[in-house]
């Protein structure tokens, strides 16, 4: 195993919602005992439906929210209890790219200010000076350094996402969490941004946690892929294995639901799962997927299958596969 950059062990996050005025307090089980590790230079995909806890895992790993249970390790060091200035120093090592390029840049700040903020926050003076460093960053993500005095609204969605990526790269972190980095962009721009991320990863050896619900994009960039359902990882495997021979019924269903440009099958309806995603407030007993699983048995409703190793480092949580 390569050395691990960022790791979550037994990560659990419960949110409390509601109050006396809205039907009592309830507990949303956003993430339930998830183990995930990102190796040096590795790109791990995290896929699943909306609300399955993908983004929550990203934010837990970055210590932007506190876990209910579980530990987080950065470069072998336990950072779960880091606070205040100690935590702020650790943030140099891990960064984030957001989904919405319109919300992730302060509309009142010029691009030059946005990109020099990381250095000013940490009191770092790059060897070549902040201004030159900002120009270099803009060049690296394919932006014209002359545009540094523009405001974010003067850029297109793809260009804004490039600014967001440049900001994440500024402090030369070891790992970047990309939280749906392309799902708000046009398809043609998506490809450019994915290629940019891949080039930057290959140049710098940076590790990525790539959160997405778009399987085609994940297949394009990731080395390993984790599939989430209702707060838990149900399958994690090397990319090729997962896409060629999925084991978990949910993974199979996901892959079958991807539209493929195939003229011969144009009019055939895509595979669809029956039913709705159960509420994370009141998850089903046993395997959370048994309510929608086409092959579920009595055992599945009674007992939750553990996420167990099948071959190499590939793991599946299913009684039947």
């Amino acid at each position, binding site marked *: 195993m390569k050395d691990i950059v960022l790791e979550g062990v037994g990560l659990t996050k419960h949110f409390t919602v509601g109050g006396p005025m809205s039907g009592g307090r309830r507990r949303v089980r956003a993430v339930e005992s998830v183990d995930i590790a990102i190796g040096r230079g590795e790109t791990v995909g995290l896929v699943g439906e909306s609300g399955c806890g993908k983004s929550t895992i990203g934010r837990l790993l*970055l210590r*932007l929210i506190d876990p209910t249970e579980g530990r987080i390790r950065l470069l072998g060091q336990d950072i779960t209890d880091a606070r205040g200035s100690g*935590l*702020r*120093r650790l*943030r*140099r090592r*891990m*960064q*984030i790219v*957001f*989904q*919405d390029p319109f*919300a*992730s*840049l*302060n*509309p*009142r*700040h010029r691009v030059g200010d946005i990109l020099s*903020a*990381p250095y000013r*926050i*940490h009191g770092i003076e790059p060897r070549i000076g902040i201004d030159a460093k900002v120009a270099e960053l803009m060049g690296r993500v394919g932006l014209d350094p002359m545009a540094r005095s523009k*405001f974010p*609204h*003067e850029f297109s969605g793809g260009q804004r996402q490039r600014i*967001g990526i440049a*900001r994440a790269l500024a*402090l030369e972190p070891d790992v970047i969490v990309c939280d749906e980095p392309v799902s708000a962009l046009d398809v043609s721009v998506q490809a450019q941004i994915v290629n940019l991320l891949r080039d930057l990863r290959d140049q710098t050896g940076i590790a990525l946690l790539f959160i997405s619900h778009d399987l085609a994009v994940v297949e394009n960039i990731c080395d390993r892929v984790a599939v989430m359902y209702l707060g838990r990882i149900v399958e994690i495997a090397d990319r090729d294995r997962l896409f060629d021979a999925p084991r978990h019924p949910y993974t199979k269903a996901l892959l079958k639901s991807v539209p493929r440009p195939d003229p011969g099958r144009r009019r055939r309806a895509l595979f669809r799962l029956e039913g709705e995603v159960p509420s994370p407030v009141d998850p089903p007993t046993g395997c959370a997927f048994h309510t929608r699983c086409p092959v579920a048995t009595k055992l599945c409703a009674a007992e939750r299958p553990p996420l167990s190793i099948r071959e190499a480092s590939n793991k599946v949580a299913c009684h039947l596969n």
Partner: protein
Amino acid sequence: MKPLAVNLSLSIGGTIVIAVLLFALFGTIVSGFEPDQMNMKNRFSLPTAEHWLGTDNFGRDLWTRMAVGARVSLTIALCSVAIAVVVGTTVGLVSGYIGGAFDLLVMRIVDIFLGFPPIVLALAIVAALGPGMLNLTLSLAAIFWTEYARVVRSVTLAQREADYVTAAAALGAGSARILFREILPNVIGPVIVLATLGIGTAIIAESGLSFLGFGVEPPTPTWGWTLSYGTRYLRAEPWLSTVAGLAIMITVLGFNLFGDGLRDHLDPRGVARRIKSAPRQ
């Protein structure tokens, strides 16, 4: 900053505001009269070459008295709004950002202030502290700050969840930087607009209190007091109250237009829209 000329509200409002400021500063010098110089032979004069705005019930030059009143009104309005903005914005930012029980407590204190009818609260404070410009200013600030606190708090509540705030936190920015560098520039727009509208409201409130006799004490010729004693002669000589009323109205209008235009000018997105929508030359 090119589109200044395109912004009509800002130009007209700014012109009026500057004119009122110049009037307050130099009005008494150019008129050639003292504000309390009486001339009983020339009462209730309409505007003439000598008395540009006419004279009042004692034959005193109205232009001079309005200029003195402008100085009083503007000083009180600007100072009370400035105090209210600083206090209200800080309270709103901190309360909205910290949230939870602290926010709840602060907002209940704001509710207590809002529970009183504003003029009654101002009257009570002036009655307790005694009349005078400083106390009038403080009492107006006490009724105005809640508005800024509430607006800034609500915008802060929305902004603190925005991705750019999370991004700053992820970069390692501290609370002070997040509050004042990231969030403050995004809440200041509504505050500026409210403040310029607030200056108008403050002028009216100050005039109202003076009208009721709780403002700056006569013989200081405030606009409110002039409006008030003008009503005694309203049927026979409507001009006196009309001048005072117009002075208040034009000034308030000027500040409102100015605030409106300023908001558009300060919002970089608004400017972009204006450039695009402006007719081609």
